[in-house]
């Protein structure tokens, strides 16, 4: 369970930093002096960062695997024949076959869909909850902030893995789709707090800006100010945190499936395959190593992507 804590710790750094760059930072020496937006500045930094391109490439690759797995793997992952148990590489199965005689590589490729679906949807729901709660708490302050902040404190105090175990035991006999959405909702329900804190702190900074006061003087209502003027400022740091959170949600889904309370066969998930490969590692290690590598690379890609974007948006690090 330390996975979640450590990622949360990384996210907290993002929370403290937020985005505090002044728009229109003057260009470097030798370049024409031109006012650039923070986003433009960050993009210029990102373009030259190899880590950004590598992680983006990995993310796109995994996303493509999730959408059209047939392009990457020739065999059907559910076509398992016991007679070729732990057989070596042959006919499209570049990593050989696992204990059940299924194509190891094909299963890893098809496993991307469940992982990415869980990660992306949990991150989406997390983002919505975090934006609503963070905006309300940061913009209105006072008792609204006090109540919402205590709620955040309490949810943050609940250990994610333990709570997920309890919540998911309720659906242990349900069908595949129910399970999938149960995992998504449980992760979102427990994982929105860090992002909400980030949004809250950037809303508080944005609220005090002159342009907000100007908008108010022009007669803009609370809704318009929040939507048009504050939301764009809170979005960038929230997206960074959510990118990193997406990686940790994928790891969490695999962990839950590994334990046997997340997704279950016939759904193909890296967590399930890692657990199955672990049992037979003495006979053949590839069924363990292949899904492990897929999972680790995917999680790493999202975390590095988030890290790179955050570094680009943080003027203090330049």
């Amino acid at each position, binding site marked *: 369970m*330390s996975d979640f804590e450590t990622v949360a*710790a990384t996210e907290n750094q993002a929370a403290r930093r937020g985005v505090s760059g002044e728009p229109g930072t003057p260009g470097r020496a030798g370049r024409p002096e031109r006012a650039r937006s923070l986003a433009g500045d960050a993009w210029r930094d990102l373009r030259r960062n190899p880590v950004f391109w590598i992680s983006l490439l990995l993310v796109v690759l995994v996303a493509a695997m999730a959408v059209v797995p047939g392009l990457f793997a020739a065999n059907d992952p559910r076509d398992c024949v016991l007679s070729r148990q732990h057989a070596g590489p042959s006919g499209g199965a570049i990593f050989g076959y696992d204990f059940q005689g299924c194509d190891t590589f094909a299963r890893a490729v098809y496993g991307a869909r469940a992982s990415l679906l869980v990660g992306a949807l949990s991150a989406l729901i997390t983002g919505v909850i975090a934006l609503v709660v963070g905006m309300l708490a940061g913009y209105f302050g006072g008792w609204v902030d006090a109540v919402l902040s205590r709620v955040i404190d309490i949810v943050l105090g609940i250990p994610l893995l333990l709570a997920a175990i309890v919540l998911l035991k309720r659906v242990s006999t349900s069908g595949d789709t129910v399970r999938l959405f149960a995992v998504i909702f449980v992760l979102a329900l427990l994982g929105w707090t860090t992002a909400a804190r980030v949004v809250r702190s950037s809303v508080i900074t944005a609220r005090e800006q002159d342009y907000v006061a100007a908008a108010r003087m022009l007669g803009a209502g609370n809704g318009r100010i929040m939507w048009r003027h504050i939301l764009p400022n809170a979005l960038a740091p929230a997206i960074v945190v959510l990118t990193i959170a997406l990686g940790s949600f994928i790891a969490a889904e695999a962990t839950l499936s590994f334990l046997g309370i997340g997704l279950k066969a016939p759904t193909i998930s890296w967590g399930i395959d890692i657990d199955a490969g672990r049992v037979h590692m003495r006979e053949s290690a590839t069924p363990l190593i292949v899904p492990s590598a897929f999972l680790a690379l995917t999680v790493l890609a999202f975390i590095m992507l988030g890290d790179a974007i955050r570094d680009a948006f943080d003027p203090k690090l330049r």
Partner: protein
Amino acid sequence: MLRFILRRLLQMVLAFFGTTLIVYALMFAGQGDPIQALAGERPVTPAQRAYLTEKYHLDATGVGGFFYRYFNYLGGLVQGDLGQSLTGRQISDILAAAWPVTLKLAVIAMAVTVIFGVTAGVIAAIRRSGVFDHATLVLTLLVLGIPTIVLAPLAQYFFGVRWPIFPPTAGAQPSFYALLLPGIVLGSLSLATALRLTRTSVTENLRADYVRTARSKGLRRRRIVGVHVLRNSLIPVITFLGVELGNLMGGAIITEGVFNVPGVGFNLFRGIRTEDGPLVVGIVSVLVVVYLLSNLVVDVLYAVLDPRIRYE
């Protein structure tokens, strides 16, 4: 200070009731027929049914009945009575046998974290932007990004099976040596965070005014770093380590499960696998309490170490 502790305590009590209520409501209240669940596949006579219904107030519906049963569960939890697992063992007995092993494993993991993480963090901060600094940053990113369910089985495979340096599983009465590999795997995650925290904190403190003062007084660099800077920069690290110790006490579900270390996490792992509901609920309830308590202790400790925390 007293106000801080009181407020923090109140917050914890709220969290305690909140989490136990959720655990209870989800695990017990929603199930179909608890008496039949208790009996398994055997038939239940009307007399037994009437007796159990009377004993546990199962016929009382609505808020009165639910909260009566909830407080019954809470009372048992506070007194250490966690009921029986499906195999008929007292859950408190299972936990009593498991704690020492988990504690041993946690201490090993902690030692790994402190010895390697803090030392490397200080070195990385002193030689900022050097080769060592960049190497450790990349390495910690890798460790942070790789989930335990990948790290633990792979470590077991490579260092236990492929190159048998360590025993691949720990077994019933694990020796120190058998616990070393799981301890390293467990400690590596907190090691990465501890390293990064130490590095950030030491870097910030190296720029502080008191360091400049110390340097202009003519103090040697070793003394400045070893005494002045370290004392100030280890506060957040200590807090983190405290929280981690709380996590390690019960959080080692995956590592203990993979390496067959018969600790608390292993029993939870087994309970989930064998669908042993009472065992899972019992252990999770206790772990939640441990987690909340360790967070409380750390927060208070933090306020003692750093007076700035008390006035927010």
